[in-house]
């Protein structure tokens, strides 16, 4: 989608007037739709639709050996796949750059122990731990991927059941473990402090949140902040363009404020939704 100058100017003026093309104010989000437990064979999953940005997240669990540096911690890995369904540009390896960028931002956002405690995933110190694979599938891109992805990831982790370990035996160098095969006997993780990300785009002289795909093209600079319980876990500047330090401060403040509100809203939704029985994905 390429915009012509007139369209860009129209968007720019709208932002200036605090009356965006779709009628929103600068600090307003588009409507979101969230479902959890949509991928039955994953240990946790969620699907988030933010206007026409569509993200599917599934969490798979494997056993692994803890790293030498952190013998009492488990592992988490993020993988983003940009499906060509979203745009033909993603065909083949077309989406890889974007995918890596998003995955890296998530990795750094979750790196802080305060945001996500990996020690709960350790099974036997130095020998055995759980490794969470958080797989993100981008099905449609309608702008503001970071926010959408981070919300979906948090929801999927919230939804995740860790199998209950019944017994761990050390047999020579082999760690043998027994796990309950009953799906109802699982363990939940503490996901409340997990970060959510907020993208702040500078369009003209103003900062907006939740830019649509068209607005993203008009932005002169963008910044993504990850917020966990009123603290930043990561800040990164995305795209081209530069920011004045004062604008930076301003946008950080805005990001923190919006991030906390967003997080609250999400947790509220997750809490009130005790994983209602899903009939089928997308149906």
């Amino acid at each position: 989608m390429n915009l012509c100058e007139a369209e860009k100017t129209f968007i720019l003026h709208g932002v200036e007037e605090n009356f965006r093309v779709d009628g929103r104010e600068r600090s307003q989000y588009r409507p979101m739709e969230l479902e959890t437990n949509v991928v039955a064979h994953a240990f946790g999953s969620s699907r988030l639709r933010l206007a026409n940005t569509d993200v599917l997240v599934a969490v798979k669990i494997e056993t692994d050996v803890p790293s030498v540096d952190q013998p009492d911690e488990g592992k988490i890995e993020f993988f983003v796949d940009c499906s060509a369904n979203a745009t033909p540009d993603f065909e083949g390896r077309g989406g890889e750059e974007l995918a890596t960028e998003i995955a890296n931002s998530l990795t750094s956002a979750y790196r802080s122990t305060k945001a996500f405690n990996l020690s709960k995933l350790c099974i036997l110190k130095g020998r055995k731990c759980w490794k969470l694979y958080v797989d993100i599938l981008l099905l449609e891109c309608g702008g503001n991927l970071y926010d959408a992805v981070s919300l979906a990831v948090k929801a999927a982790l919230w939804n995740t059941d860790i199998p209950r370990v019944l017994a761990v035996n050390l047999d020579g160098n082999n760690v043998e473990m027994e796990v309950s095969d009953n799906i109802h006997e699982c363990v939940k993780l503490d996901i409340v402090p997990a970060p959510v990300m907020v993208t702040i785009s500078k369009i003209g002289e103003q900062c907006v949140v939740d830019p649509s795909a068209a607005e993203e093209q008009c932005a002169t600079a963008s910044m993504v902040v990850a917020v966990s319980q009123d603290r930043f876990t990561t800040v990164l500047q995305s795209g081209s363009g530069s920011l004045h330090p004062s604008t930076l401060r301003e946008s950080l403040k805005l990001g923190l404020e919006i991030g906390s509100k967003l997080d609250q809203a999400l947790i509220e939704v997750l809490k009130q939704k005790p994983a209602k029985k899903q009939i089928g994905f997308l149906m």
Partner: protein
Amino acid sequence: MLTTKIFIRKNRAGNFLKNIREHYLRDDIHCGISNCHDCPPNSNISPATHENKCSLYNFNHYLVLDTNVILHQMDLLEEDAMCNVIILNTVLEEVKHRNLPIYKRLNNIMENTDRNFYLFPNNFHIECYIAQDKLEVINDYNDRCIRRACTWYMQHVPDAKFVLLTDDVANRQLAAEENIYCCSVENYVAHLENCGSLQDKLAHHDGHSISKSDDIFPPHLTTLEIHKGIKENKLYQGVYHASRDNFLEGYVVVEESDGTPMQIIVQGRVGQNRAVQGDVVAVELFNVKEWTAPSDLVFEDEGLVESGVDEVLRKEAELNVGKGKKEAEDRKPTGRVVGVIRRKWRQYCGILQQDGDASGLYQLFVPAEKRVPKIRIQTRQGVFLRTQKIVVTIDLWPRHSRYPEGHFVRALGAIGDQATENEVVLLEHEVPHNQFSEQVLKCLPKLPWIITDADVEARVDLRDIDICSVDPPGCTDIDDALHCRPLTKDTFEVGVHIADVSHFIRPGTALDVEAANRATTVYLVNKRIDMVPELLSSNLCSLRGGEERFAFSCIWEIDKNAKILNVRCHKSIIRSRKAMTYEEAQITIDDKTKNDSIAISLRNLNMLAKILKRKRLENGALVLASPEVKIHMDSETMEPLDVEVKKLFETNSMVEEFMLLANISVAEIILEAFPDCAMLRRHPEPPVSNFDPLIKVGKNLGFDIKVDTGKHLAESLDEAVNANNPYINTMLRILATRCMMQAVYFPSGIYEKSNFFHYGLAVPLYTHFTSPIRRYADIIVHRLLAVTVGSDATYPDLLDKQKSKLLCNNLNYRNRMAQYAGRASVAFNTHLFFRNKVQDEEGYILCIRKNAVQILIPRYGLECTLYLAEKGQSSAYFQYDVEEQTQKCGDITLHAFDPVTVRLSLDSSNVQHEKFVLKLVHPYIEGFSLPPLNVPSKRKGDSKNKNKSHEKRKKQLH
């Protein structure tokens, strides 16, 4: 409607996956009750003709069984008294999961339409399916499924009644709350009409006979504890083997962590802890200090039904007395059984113990297999059963019971009766010997059997060739015939014609399935259990003299040096000129006055066979020996008249040579056409350690037996000749035979080509082609060959490597069992022959033991033990020399292979285990040997013309 099942499963890589499966619920399942109005009419549902008459209920009813009832009371269910049974699919699946043999037996019952067993797939029925509750235990869930099905049936067919049989009290209570009629099996059977014999078959699993005596066995560990113990290397898992001689001793064969096998001795009540022969058990190994040596005491269980544990305690004490004296190097790993991982209980043949009260409710059963403990059963017909050989199965072995508890299954016939003994031999070796079923017989061709023009068209007509067959006397299943005619001055055409059984047995038919299961014809002394019905085995497939028969011919062009110029195979029609015996053929060859075409061709065949044999032996083929005997039976009384070693003629070897040639040629052909699934036969080279006894004996006799290759072995056996004792060579060959491995069938795809080798015959490729009437492997080979020569088509299973492998496993198993059964039958009849006879016989010492010598009596092919002393004691007369392997008494020394004379008699004091007793006659040792009998032993039963004998072809290792 659809639901899903979700569970966590561990995969091979050790990861945990969340699995999800669909589960469709249906509304089109028939309830199985013939007069049901709601279900759509179904012609497969037959009306219930039988009426279940139980005095507890004054109405006819359908029965619903729970899983444990099926698992425990299969012998009862196999009785015709209980019909109209609804088997729930959830129950069936659990049965299958828990016990496959029981599942198969249940399936057999369900196939019998008279019994009216209906399988109701309740877990797929929309109204009977219930989901497992979040934290519900699987057993409770299964019981709930059963009750749900019952209530559904009650409401679905209001005019029928349903009774749930379960021995689970809690389940009965819950069922009663839902107004389901329910009852325990014992109670039900007791009130059944004509329940007398049925009650005997009831298995008791609820520890009904709580005796006042305290528990005499330590408890077993739970499955979880066992698993943990094995994982932590504290316990070992292995198969329990009981000692034949000492009921208080056994050993468990386990694998050490590096894979080497180890035997752990277990002794006494605590050590054995209710393990039964063949069970897979968990054992705990003692400290080295507590290790003991295998006891050399002989203990027989002399216990009675009522007797307590005192006798055991006394004998245990005796066992312990011996322990201290054992020398350190004799000590072996010792331990105790702490749990049973898998019971290998089966049905056992045997008799009731004769002493004690014959009319008592409890009787003690003594199995024919000595390694199985006595079994306590409940019966109301003890007096009668004491005269019978019976079959009994074990139900359980509670801690307080000295003996395992079981129940009577069926009677086989009077003790000592020959038919009964045959039955026992067949049962103990799992030989399928039922009558052929209707379905199987339907597959047979109709008589009169006529050769059609189409048949002639499809085959090569060899009716004008002078073909004859050579077989043992009395042979009715003739599966091979031969011919030979000169082509040029230097070349011959030789044909081997094999009965074309695969023409009659088509793949996939009931006949084929049955034959594949039987795998081989089993020859007992006076009975033959055919692999295929008699019409085929003794008539249509048998290449009888003068009759036109279908054959599969393998025809070579051979020059006078027995070099094969070419070979071809095709289906043919032949007419054998004459069915000869080996003896007749031999006479024909030797009689120079006979010059007809048959005589000439036999002479040529014989000449070629000799060259072939020489070539084969030069290649390193082994000539082995095992004493095979023939028992002459009185045709009227079926009593054995005489036992003798089979006589061999040159013609035996002649026929054998050409059969080998045919087999080898066919093996090459089918392997080329089917590299992946040709059915071949291999004979693996034995590990060198197998030969140790042979080498040792050879050394003592001054022969150097080389075993590094088959060829060297063959050569060194040829050289090991002692002019003074010509039998020594035969004895060495007998010993060599015992060092060999079993030859086995296999599909070519599962091994590397280098493993196809046949060690005994020293050929790279071998198969069985020449006896399709009595071996199933040959039928498969025929089918493969028929495809190769374009006269038949393949079918899926023929080309399926995995299926072929399974088939081979069965063939190998059945062959082994058939061999054992044959030997057991010979042994029984030899015993029968020697009853009340005492004879002096020539024999040879086979090997020297510490307190005995093993003696081979060639005339009867018997191998017996001559005890020089009581077991465990040193002989008062003889000195044992370990190094030299001799027993010395004064100036008389007994070496291996020395000729001796012994007195032979039969000890019949144990009805089930008759055994030979030997006494030394020559060399004479004052005080030990006996003076010779006045009557020198001589041949009896000279007239053998009338004697009917079933004789097996000489079976060597191939």
